[in-house]
C-alpha cells in the first residue's frame, strides 16, 4: 500500500468510513509504525479542531510545522472509483482547508502588527457576525472578562462603565 493510500485510509478510519476488518488491520499497522502514528495523531487533532469552536494554543515551531506538513502532503489528483469517492474527496478537501485556515490566521496575526512577533501565537478561530460576539462555551474567557471589569473598577482604574459591562453581561451567551 502506498503512503497516499495509507493516508486516505487514515482519513476514512477517522470518519468511520472504513470496514471493520480494514479498520482493525490499519490500527494494527498504526500501532507498529511510529511515522503512521504521528500522522494519525495529526489527523485527529485537525479533526478535533474542525469540529470544535474552541481554539488551540500552539508553540514556537507551529508555523514551521504547518509549512512542512503542507510541503510534504501529497497532492491527490487521480480520480478514484467506488462508493467512497465523494467522501474521500470531502475529507481530503476538509483537511486541506483546515490546515490552510490555520496557516492563514497565523500568518495574519504576524503581519497585522509587524514590530512585535511573538514566538508563540494563538491559532484563533474567528467566528463571524453574532457568533463572534457570543463567547458561550469558553468559561475561562468569560471569567477573565469579569475579572477585567471588576478589577478595572475596584482598583480605581479610570475607564468607562466597567460595571455596566458586568451587570449586563449574560453568562449564558
Amino acid at each position, binding site marked *: 500500500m502506498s503512503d497516499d493510500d495509507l493516508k486516505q485510509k487514515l482519513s476514512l478510519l477517522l470518519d468511520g468510513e472504513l470496514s471493520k476488518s480494514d479498520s482493525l488491520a490499519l490500527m494494527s499497522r498504526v500501532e507498529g509504525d511510529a511515522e503512521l502514528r504521528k500522522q494519525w495523531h495529526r489527523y485527529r487533532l485537525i479533526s478535533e479542531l474542525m469540529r470544535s469552536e474552541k*481554539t488551540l*494554543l500552539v508553540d514556537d515551531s507551529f508555523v514551521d510545522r504547518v509549512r512542512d506538513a503542507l510541503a510534504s502532503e501529497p497532492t491527490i489528483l487521480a480520480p478514484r472509483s467506488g462508493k467512497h469517492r465523494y467522501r474521500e474527496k470531502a475529507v481530503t478537501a476538509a483537511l486541506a482547508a483546515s490546515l490552510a485556515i490555520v496557516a492563514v490566521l497565523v500568518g495574519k496575526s504576524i503581519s497585522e502588527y509587524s514590530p512585535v512577533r*511573538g514566538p*508563540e501565537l494563538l491559532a484563533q478561530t474567528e467566528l463571524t457576525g453574532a457568533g463572534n460576539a457570543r463567547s458561550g462555551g469558553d468559561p475561562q474567557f468569560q471569567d477573565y472578562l469579569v475579572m477585567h471589569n471588576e478589577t478595572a*473598577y475596584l482598583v480605581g482604574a*479610570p*475607564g468607562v*462603565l466597567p*460595571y455596566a459591562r458586568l451587570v449586563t453581561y449574560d453568562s449564558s451567551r
Partner: protein
Amino acid sequence: MLLAAEAFGATAELRQSDAIRWLMDMRQGVIHLNYRGVVAYLKDKHVESFQLFHAFAEGIEQERLVSMNSPLREVVRNAEKVACYFPDTKTVFVENKPSRRSVLLELPEDLAQLSRHYDFKLLAQEYVAQRLSQIISIEPRDDFRYARRIWVDVESKLPLKFELVGENDQVVEQMMFTSLSIEESIPRSELNASTKVDTFTWQINQRKALPLDSLKWVLENVPDGFQMISYTRLLRAPTEHPVEHILLSDGFSSVSIYIDELGGDVVKGHQKKVGAINAHSRKIDRYLVTVMGEVPARTVQAIAGGVHRQNVQRP
C-alpha cells in the same frame, strides 16, 4: 504665515482646554449630584438596561446599579465597600475600602496629561433623553486606542450618552440614559442591595495585592501612555486556582494581563473579540498569558508579544 500658524495652534489648544473643562465639570456632576435613571447599554447589537441610583450626602457617595432583565445582577457601592452580586453563579465579589470611583462614568484625575495620547474636541449640541447635551469627542493620537464620544447634559453636566468608537468609525459599545431624574435626595432603601446572600451557598472571591518587585515578568511592548496600576493574585472560587493579574491603563482604556500556570500541554484558547474587548493569548513555557482590554486587536497583540519571564534567555 507663521503668525497664522501660531494663531491656529492657540485656537486648537483653546478648544482642547474647553473640552477638558466640560469633562472636569462632568466628573464633579457625577460625584456630587443625587440622581436615578434607566440606562440602556448596547454592545454587539444587543441592548441591556439597568437602573442606576446615586446619592451624595455628608461628603459620602453611595450607588446602586441593578440590571432590569435576567440575570438580575447588582452592584452596590458605599463608603466601606463595593459588592458585586451574581445570583446566576451564586458569587459575590466584595472589595473593602474602595477608591472613590463612580460606577457610571469615570475619568482620570489628570485630563491634561491625557492630551499626549488623545485629542479633545467640542462638537455640536444635541438632545438626549429630552435634555440638551454637548458632544465631546476624544480621539486617540495613535492606533492603539479607541475613540470616544460623550454627550454631557448642559444643565447638570451628567454624561447622558457615551460611545466607544472602534476601527472604521464603528460604534462598538454605547451607553445612554433613556430616563434621568435629578433629585434633592435618594432614599436609603433604593441604595441598599436587594440581593439576599446565603453565606452557606455563595462563593466569595478573594484578591491579594502583590508587591511590584515580586513581579517575575517583563512587559516590553506596552504602548506609550499605559502604566501598570495593579498587580494582584486572584483566587477564583470554587477551585481557588491562582491567576496573576496585571492591570494597565492609559487613563481611559484598561488592559488586563492574566498569567495562568497550565495543567497540561494543550489548552483552550479564547475568542478574539467580544464587543469592544479584544483578547490575545500566548503560551510561554508552562504559562498561558492572556491579554485583554477595550482596545484594538493590535494593542493586545503588541502587549502579549512583549511579555516574557525575567532572566530567561529568549531566542
